[in-house]
């Protein structure tokens, strides 16, 4: 008995953390399986016959699929280009202690998106780039690049110099050493920054709200397909929410350790 009581107490404490975190998500999920009548019922119905009608509505909406593809294209491309620009930059910042460059990238990480959106809108309009993948990918790279540089700089700094030096003795150039020896060692960092950069691109709403029209809208905007001035199709909104956040949560589950490390890295060194 003496051993069980503290165990139950601890379990209750953990539940006090987990339940408030999970409840809204579970509630969104169960609502997505309800008919409009069940959703608007008071008191709320905890027992109901689940329906997949809302999901049918969401996926039969042509825009939804299109937005899904747009989000994927923009997310993947912006991450790939962020890696291409960011990996060598991070290596250089780490190896040659280019702190000013690091600071510049840090500012990009902290810059409010809205402060860039107005000039971007004007510039991209003049270049006729509004509603193109180019504009969206460029804007999302400003999300991805700072994440890549921020995370990779400390990863590269932790790669021991001796490993590189032995390759240098064999006559390899710095860039060959970087590609063939340092990059493979920094694999976990690449996974961390890729996952985080993709997640933040996937969830970004503000940039495509302004920079895209009909052709290139991304998924976070799709939710407004089911909201009108007259009324809200709550079931479809909930189903669309689940469909939008499910890939993000799946990615997080697959790379849990890396996501935790990346998100806590800003404050905890290492």
């Amino acid at each position, binding site marked *: 008995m003496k051993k069980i009581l503290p165990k139950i107490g601890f379990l209750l404490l953990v539940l006090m953390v987990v339940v408030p975190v999970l409840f809204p998500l579970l509630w969104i999920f169960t609502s997505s399986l309800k008919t409009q009548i069940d959703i608007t019922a008071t008191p709320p119905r905890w027992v109901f016959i689940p329906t997949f009608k809302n999901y049918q509505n969401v996926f039969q909406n042509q825009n939804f699929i299109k937005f899904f593809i747009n989000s994927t294209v923009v997310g993947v491309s912006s991450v790939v280009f962020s890696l291409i620009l960011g990996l060598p930059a991070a290596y250089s910042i780490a190896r040659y202690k280019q702190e000013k460059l690091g600071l510049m990238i840090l500012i990009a990480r902290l810059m409010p998106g809205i402060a860039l959106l*107005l*000039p971007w*809108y004007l510039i991209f309009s003049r270049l006729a780039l509004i509603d193109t993948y180019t504009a969206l990918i460029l804007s999302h790279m400003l999300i991805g690049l700072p994440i890549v540089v921020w995370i990779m700089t400390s990863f590269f700094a932790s790669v021991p110099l001796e490993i590189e030096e032995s390759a240098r003795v064999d006559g390899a150039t710095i*860039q060959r050493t970087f590609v063939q020896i340092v990059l493979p060692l920094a694999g976990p960092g690449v996974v961390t920054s890729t996952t985080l950069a993709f997640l933040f691109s996937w969830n970004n709403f503000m940039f495509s709200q302004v920079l895209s029209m009909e052709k290139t809208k991304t998924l976070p905007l799709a939710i407004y397909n089911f909201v009108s001035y007259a009324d809200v199709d709550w079931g479809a*909104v*909930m189903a669309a*929410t689940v469909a939008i956040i499910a890939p993000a949560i799946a990615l997080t589950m697959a790379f849990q350790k890396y996501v935790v490390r990346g998100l806590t890295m800003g*404050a905890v060194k290492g």
Partner: protein
Amino acid sequence: MESSKDDPIPLVYIGVLMLDSRFIDKHVRVIFPLPAVLFVSSLMIFPVLYTLSISFTNWNLTSGLPGRFVGIKTYLAILQEPRFWAALWRTLYFTVLAVFIETILGMIWALILNKEFKGKGITKLFLLMPMVSTPVAIGISWTLFYEPTIGLANWALKLVGLPSLKWIADPNLVIPSIILVDVWQWTPMMALIILAGLAGLSIEPVESARVDGAGPFQIFRHITLPMVAPVILTAVVLRSIDALKTYDIIYAMTNGGPGFASETLNIYAYNLSFSYFRLGNAAVVLFFLFTMVMILSYIVARMRTALEN
């Protein structure tokens, strides 16, 4: 694959040439960061300077006329605009209260979870879920939660015998209601950061204090807290910058309403830019927002160097 002489040089060959280029090897500290620097210059530094130049004009897109240079007139106009001051204080109110609650709650959660137990991994996974969920979708979903007649929030109040509230439709309650969503999304991050900080601590000081007869509260107050303080402080500043920038959930839940009751600087700047097209005014507000973030960034940068030493 055989390539005829007419083919352009395959990329692979260029790659191999670059890998062994002595020129790149010699200038690597310039060549490696150069593409990223050019990119950030053209997509961040140039746009910020462009915004700064707009802030000295009276450019209004709806007038169809090009902006005219008016010096600091727009700045003076904005500084006399009550809506600007209201938005500024609201932004600070939102940021300070949200981050305060997230820090305290995050610390409590971290202390609860700071030991090995079965299911710790999955608990951490649960904690990640709110913060990787698309904010705009979450915001809209929470409006159903706050819905006065069919929402769960009022049903819960009724259950415990309290009168129902109007939540995001009530000018006095709208900011706290939005803060609750922010707290739900971001307390887990605070908890995970503090948890990571706690995991990195050596246990010796705690052990010796326990031997000396210190109670758990004393140990926390005099040993654990001072040791994780740097971690918490950095997390607080980073989170404050992000809270200052909060846009998605506010747009999704109220778009600044009812009236202007939840209009933060971000929403105000967005409306000036893309609803009223008063670009000069918008640029001034953006300049203030930008300055606030720069000051906080400076603090972060100083703290990072201080922590590294």
